[in-house]
Every structure is written in structure tokens, then in C-alpha cells.
């Protein structure tokens, strides 16, 4: 079947959000770990580099997934591609 303009737009917005969240994921994981020694100089609930690795990054991961589910479930409705009969 032929995709409508609306469908293409939906997919592009999905890709944009995916890219944005992936960038956050990348920074909080790899960039922070790369500078872990430098960040450990800062005190925030213990040395900052250690704290982010042990807890901060994990909280961000949970939030990323929570936000993506909410965003996409709303986007489905906005573009009329949501599933019908389920709750």
C-alpha cells in the first residue's frame, strides 16, 4: 500500500525522538564514564562520577524508556495509527 504524507511524518517524528533519546543515553553512559575520574573530583552524594555510574545513569535510563512509551503512545493517537480494541 501507499503510505500517506501523514504516515511519513509520523515515522520521521518517531525517528527524531529515537535519535534524541539515544543521544542522551550515549552521553550519560559513555561520555560520563570517559570522564569518570575528572567527575569524581566533584562531590554530589559521594564522588559524582561514581554516583552517576552506580545510580544516576540508571535513573536516566528508566526515565528515557518511560518518556518514549508516553510520547509514542500519544503520537499514535495524534496520527490515528493507534490500535483499536485494546485498552
Amino acid at each position, binding site marked *: 500500500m501507499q503510505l500517506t504524507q501523514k504516515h511519513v511524518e509520523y515515522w520521521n517524528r518517531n525517528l527524531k525522538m529515537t535519535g534524541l533519546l539515544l543521544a542522551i*543515553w550515549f552521553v550519560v553512559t559513555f561520555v560520563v*564514564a570517559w570522564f*569518570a575520574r575528572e567527575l569524581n573530583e566533584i562531590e554530589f*552524594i*559521594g564522588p559524582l*562520577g561514581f554516583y552517576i555510574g*552506580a545510580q544516576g545513569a*540508571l535513573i536516566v535510563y528508566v526515565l528515557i*524508556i518511560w518518556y518514549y512509551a508516553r510520547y509514542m503512545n500519544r503520537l499514535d493517537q495524534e496520527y490515528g495509527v493507534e490500535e483499536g480494541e485494546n485498552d
Partner: protein
Amino acid sequence: MPSRFQAEFTAQLKRYYTVYTGGFLSFVVLVGVLEMLGIPNRALGYLFLFATILLYAGIGFMAKTAEVSEYYVAGRRVPAVFNGMATGADWMSAASFIGLAGTLYTAGYDGLAFVMGWTGGYCLVALFLAPYLRKFGQFTIPDFLGARYGGNVPRTIGVLAVVLCSFTYVIAQISGVGLITSRFTGLEFGIGVFVGLAGILVCSFLGGMKAVTWTQVAQYIILIIAYMIPVVWLSVKHTGSPVPQITAYTSALPKVTALEKEFNDSSTPKGAAEESVRVIYRERAEAAAAKLKALEAGGAAFLAEEKAKLEARMMELKAAEVPDPRAIDAAERAVISFPIDPAAARAVWNRDSGIGAKAAPVKAHAEAFAATGKTPEEVEANRTKAKKNFLALVFCLMVGTAALPHILMRFYTTPSVKEARRSVFWSLLFIFLLYFTAPALAILVKFEVYHNLVGTAFTELPAWVWNWAAVDKTLMAISDINKDGIVQLAEITIGGDLIVLATPEIAGLPYVISGLVAAGGLAAALSTADGLLLTIANALSHDVYYKMIDPNAPTTRRLVVSKALLLVVALTAAYVTSLKPGNILFLVGAAFSLAAAAFFPSLLLGIFWKRANKLGAVLGMLMGLGITIYYMVQTYEFFGINAPLWWDIKPISAGIFGIPLGFLGVIVGSLISRAPSREIQELVDHVRYPNLEGDTSPVAT
């Protein structure tokens, strides 16, 4: 399914599991009462293990089914929250439950690679795979490869990769089951393996995915309760607050850091005491090294000479005017235990010269990429190596998480795409509960050891130290090296697995909580093994038998074949486990690298790149998998080749080469051959949109 029924079903599940949780807690209280009545610990251990296995069997029996979609995907009506708990249990294995806190205790910051890797991977699952696989809506991961890329070749490679990585992983789990049953009941390891296996089979055999799902929810509840109670208690004991995840950093960690500095500063009393032990280690190491050198030069003659010296010393002591019986005894023992030949001597002295490692200063817990070396340049070089390996391991574990078939399969079981997205959130939230507690537990136990155990007189050691030293020397060993009667940190050797297992005793809790922790560890290992075995058996029965050998097979025969294969796979796995093949942590790491390299590129590009085609998928999977296996075989010591490392990357992170090569393979292979057919491109659109009007894709059933 109409949403009214689904809502009723969810409400009913909530009622069931609330009652279940209450029932389980009352059972724990009941066992506690039995303990106070004087029932011996061994009996309480049996009670816990058999009661929980019986419980899982009961749930498995109640969920028995003869329907294909219930057997393979639990009828696709598992609500997001419950699928989250089941995924949590499926995910968290014995390595997470018992090993993680121990790794963090010994490795400090560098152990966080596992914490970040095993949680951050869910971001990739949520963003790239779960909703699309749910929309695709078949039964297995090779199903997707088969439909998307067409033909039996991608499906076959998929099946091989499923079997390879799941089997590697399941062996690690069954070893965990064997260890826990044998430690808490005194059964032999081999018997423990088969008892655990019986527990696994009764769940999955009758009801497939449906039974496994509902048992895994039950197992999640047990394992999270078992993990939390001792940690919270320990936190209350040390800091007066029941939130270990905060107090560990604000209260315990600064004290641990201060103590580390004191231990390393020989101008303080504690530092001087530590130094006196380290001096002895260094002397022993040097003496052993000197003897090794003399042995290489003098051979057997040197050995005889040394033995003669010891014998002369013994005679001398015996001939003394006032014989000292203790000194004579020690001298006699030295003669008896003297190595009999050069080979034995080399082994003993090699071990002793390694003792010098214990003389190293205490590593700071929060320090990232700690490194040692003779010159500042060498330290810096080693530090860069540690950093590279840390990042590579995090990457492999994350991508591996998003490629392990037994986890991805779970997202076929939700009622809708919307629920699949939510379900990834619940999964990670439930996993997060344990993972953000483990680093706190490691710090609290470290505080206990550094602050309370170090400095205690040997005559007043706490009971848990003696108990564990008696059970297993690799977990806890302690001896007064410098004979000052006081414990120094350098005199203690702690094995990582001790941390979780001994926490109840360290916190001064009754034995019933130790039994609870064992039951929690067992739940973690059993639930993961369940999911893995089912994944292997399903890939063989569904993808190989039904899709390739006999597509007209009637439902009943498909299920009979599935169940028969499940038995065969389980018994094979138990047999391989009883041979004890290699280190558990390496097996787990290898499974992640293998899965990541084999599946991630072709799954991801299959959804996000319409141009990806059959040749690309075949090439990508073969290249990714091939290079990963090649690197492991070349560099992991188990295989005995020990080729030089590439860019200093350790074999556990072999996927760091396999994943990019997998992507390259898919891209190059696709571009040099024709674009996929229109039907396939429509299938891609079909999985991208939760609901597409006028969708004619053939799999949209």
C-alpha cells in the same frame, strides 16, 4: 481481545499475586517461628528450597495448556506490569543476584560496567526492538529473520545463534542452581543440579511460555523481597535510615574512603599495622622467588639440600636441653609438607611468589580505572587500557541485552504495541530496584569489614566470619599473619559471592533470612534457566521442525515435539554443566557478545532500513558471529591459544569487533544485491505502524 476482559484479567492477576505475596511473607514468619522453637538450620534450609520449588511446580501445573499460542507466547495477554516482573526474573540470574554486589565489592567503580551495561541495554530494547517485534507478532526471533529476509538461510543461522548463546548462558544458570542447592542443603553439586532441573522442568514442561510467565512473576516477588530485607536491615543498623541507596553514599562511603587512606598511610597506627603485614607478604614472595631461581639452577639437588636443612633443624630442636613441643611440631610439619619433586616445588613457590599482590595498597572504592605500574607513564598506559576495556564491556553488555532472544521473546506476549512499550518501562523499573541497591550493599559491607572487622581481636571475631571460613576458604579466609592478635585488612581474603550470602548474618538477622536469601538466589537462577531452555526448545521445534521440516504438522504433534525437545535440551544442559566447563562470569559475558554480534545488526536494520536484504543479513550474521567466536577462541585462556590481544581488548568484550562488522556485513551485502521485494517492504511498514489502514502484509494475522 476486548479491553473489558483484559481489564478484568489484570484485576484478577493483581488479586492473585497480592494474596500470593501475603502468603509467602506468612510462610517466612512461620519458618522464623520454627527456628525459635529450635528446629535445626539444615532442616529450615530444606524447607525453604523444597517449598519454593513445589510452589513453582504448582503454578506450572495450574497453567498447563494445549494451545499453541498459549504455549509459545502465553496467549498474548500478559499485562505490561506483569510482563515487566516476568522479564525482570527472566533477566536477573544468579550472576546478578549473588555475583553483582561481590564484583562491586572487589572491583569498586570498575565493577559498575555490569550495573550500567545490564540496565542501559533496555533503552535499546525500548527504542529499537520491542514495539516493532510485538507488531510483527510471531513466536520466535528466527521467525522475524525468516519473514523479513525471506528463505530458510537467515532463519537457520538465527536458530544456530539462538542455540549457541542461550546454551552458553543456561550452563551458567544451572551451575548457579547446583551451587545454591548444594550449599544450603548439603546435597552434592551434581545432585543439586538435577534437583534444580526438576524444578525448572515442572514449570515449563506442561505450560510452556504461559506457565513460565506466571512462575517468573512469582519468582520475581520472592527474589526482590529476599534481596531487599537484609540490605535495608544492614542500612538501619549502620546508619539508622532504611534507605540504603542514599545513606550508603552520604554516610558509609566517606568513612570507607577515610579508612582506605588511613590503611595506606603507614604513619597512622592502622596504616603501620597494615604495613607490617604487607612486609611479611613481600618477604614471603621474595623468598619464594629466590627459591624458584635456585631451583631452576640447581634442580633436584637443590631440593634435596633444602629438605636436609629442614630435617637438621628438626633434629636440632629435638636434641635441645629443654625441648619446645610446639616448635618441634612446626618443624616436623615443614618437613612433611615439603614438595616431593621439582614440579611440585615449582607449583608451590609460584603460588607463594604471587602472594606479593596482597602487599599492594588498598584500592579506593570510588576510584575509576585504578592502575598500577613502575613509572608514571606505565600507570597512565594501564589506566587507558582499563578505561577502554570498561567502555567496551559496557557496550557489549548493552547491545547483548538488546539481542538476547529469551528477553526479546517476552515482548511477543503483551496484548498490544502500546503495552509492549509500557512493558519495557516496567521491566527496567523492576530490574532497577535490584541494580541500584547492589552498589549500596557493596559499600555497606565494605564499611562493616573496614570499620568493624579490621581492628577486632582474633579471640573476638564475629560468628559469621567463623561460619563462612569453615564452609568455604575461597569465600572467607582469615589468619593472623603478623601475630599481633588483631585483624588487619591485608589478613582477610573475601570471595565476591560471600557479600550477598553473608549479609543476613553480618546484619545480625536470624537464620530464616539466610534461607530466604538462598531461596531468592534459587528463584533468580531458576527463572532465567526456565526462559532460556524454553527459548532453545521453541527455536528448534517451531523454526526447525514446524517451519522447515513439516509445515503441515497438526497442533498436537507440534506441542509434543516441543516438549520432547525441551526435555532433551534440559538434560543435555545439565550433563554439560556437571562437567564444569569454565568460569561462570566468562560464560555469561560470552553469551552477551555472541548474541550482540549475531542478532543486533540484522534485527535493527531489518526494521529501520528497508533496503536491507537476505544477502546482507546472511553476511552480517556470519561475519559478526564469526569474528566474535574467532577472537574468543584465539585469546581466552580456556582454549589455550593465547594469541596477542587486539587493542588490549579482553576476550569477554569480543563483541566490540563483532557488532560493527555485523553492521558492515548487512550494509555491504544488501548494497551489492537487489533491493527486497515489495511484499517485504510492506512488511517493514507493517511493523513500523501499530495500526496501518489498508495493510495487506501477509503476516498481519
